[in-house]
């Protein structure tokens, strides 16, 4: 039994790493920013962490903190042009940003190791660290979303005019969401670097962007549990059906098309919504019959 579980440990690690990235993507979407920058910001964090440890000999915890900071600061810079854009234009701008980070990682070979990547990163992050990071991340998301920040994010996403008319500063809140998302991406980028010995520029490119976006869209964009469900399904599926693993991106694409058509709010959101509707209509039915029974007695 233990052996079977141990066999799945690498998959569990991967799940926790990708879950962090999924939350980074989830948070900006929840605040109504159509940014896809998570992957690029993760690359910034990963290389910041990797270079600090390998080239400059910093201890891993310090490098991790620096990576979070780097992700947040780059996001802050990126939020300036992004605040002037909306919707699909934000998506295009952030994809361009990913492309820039990717090119820099390839061409600044002296710093980043170029196309060969950064090698010989000491492995300092294991399952326990990732699990702690995962729990902290879920708590952070929960705390944010149940505070005034979460309420403001929800209002902005649904209707900017309403949010503004109620005193919510759109620029301030979207910038904050984007910076937190960037710091989160930076942190998980560095965790990935310290977990896997080596970094290659290509791992933070288009396929990863699609994967992260799929986790959120498939799982659900408006519930905390959404990214957990989405990441779990999309990572476990290719493992259960081994032949599918070869065609991972194909499966992701097909699943996305199906989900967008039949469960447009994502699996978790749709199920939670349905359960709520059932509970409410049951309550309504009860309150409707209550006066009748009272009248009869």
């Amino acid at each position, binding site marked *: 039994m233990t052996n079977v579980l141990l066999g799945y440990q690498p998959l569990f690690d991967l799940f926790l790493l990708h879950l962090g990235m999924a939350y980074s993507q989830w948070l900006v979407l929840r605040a109504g920013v159509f940014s896809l920058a998570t992957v690029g910001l993760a690359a910034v964090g990963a290389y910041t962490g990797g270079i600090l440890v390998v080239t400059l000999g910093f201890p891993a915890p310090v490098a991790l903190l620096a990576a979070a900071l780097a992700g947040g600061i780059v996001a802050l810079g990126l939020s300036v042009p992004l605040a002037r854009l909306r919707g699909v234009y934000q998506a295009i701008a952030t994809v361009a940003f990913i492309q820039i980070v990717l090119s820099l990682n390839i061409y600044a070979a002296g710093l980043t190791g170029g196309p060969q990547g950064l090698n010989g990163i000491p492995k300092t992050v294991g399952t326990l660290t990732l699990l702690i990071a995962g729990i902290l991340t879920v708590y*952070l998301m929960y705390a944010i979303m*149940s505070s*005034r920040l979460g*309420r403001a994010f929800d209002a902005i996403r*649904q209707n900017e005019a*309403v*949010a503004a008319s109620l005193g*919510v500063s759109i620029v301030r809140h979207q910038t904050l969401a984007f910076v937190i998302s960037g710091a989160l991406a930076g942190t998980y980028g560095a965790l990935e670097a310290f977990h896997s010995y080596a970094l290659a520029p290509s791992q933070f490119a288009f396929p990863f962007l699609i994967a992260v976006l799929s986790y959120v869209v498939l799982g659900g964009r408006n519930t905390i549990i959404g990214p957990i469900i989405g990441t779990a399904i999309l990572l476990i599926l290719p493992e259960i059906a081994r032949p599918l693993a070869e065609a991972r991106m194909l499966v992701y694409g097909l699943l996305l098309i199906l989900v967008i058509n039949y469960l447009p709010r994502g699996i978790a959101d749709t199920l939670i919504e349905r359960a709520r509707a059932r509970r409410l209509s049951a309550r309504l039915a009860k309150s409707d019959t209550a006066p009748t029974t009272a009248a009869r007695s």
Partner: protein
Amino acid sequence: MSLTLNNVSKRFGGVVASDSVNITVPKGKITGLIGPNGAGKTTIVNMITGMLAVSDGQITVGDRDITHSFADEICRAGLARTFQNIRILPDNSVLENILIGFHRHEECSTLAAMLGLPAARRESGKIREMAIAMLRRFGMSALADFPAGGLSYGHQRKLEMMRALASEPEFMLLDEPVAGMNDVESDSLAELFRELASTGMGVLLIEHNIRFVSKLCEHVYVLDGGRLIAEGAPGVVLRDPEVMAAYIGGEHA
């Protein structure tokens, strides 16, 4: 203290949507703004609340100039509004729609909110209580957990009003608040508006239902083609030939 528009104009290219409009909304009273469709009533509200840039003139709350302030700053200056075409947050529950209305008064630090510290949790709990009390006052407690998108038209209008009231404004701009309501519903809202004014709130009521406005307001402004054509007590203003012409048509006046 009052909300004052001083020679406010709005031009969209060559089209003049508001032409040197002067309006004063005192506190503790309901002021009417009427006019036929397309007279530019909503344009005025949008300019006051910072959703449209003002081309010319000045808007002040007390001695504070809000002419070029952002919408969120204007809310914090003490103005709230409802929308002519209802705008609720459809994904959120009825209660959550009211919670966001309290945003202006939430003051826990960003860090406390992010980390879910006790200060933030206390504040969330407090405004939740206040939102529940608001629902009770409007007789909608039973609907608290329902998705706001599924409410009936009348309930959605009331919800929007509760949300605006939650920000505890000094001035409330109501853009056709009783459109599509029956007499019983609109009478109960009329009662509410009187109550708000009696607590010292300044209310600007935008309507084209003349009967409703003349029942509630001591002072009305009449807008036509972006221009004020009359102002004064409803009884006098509504007999004004120009106002009758604007409403009924020139030849029949």
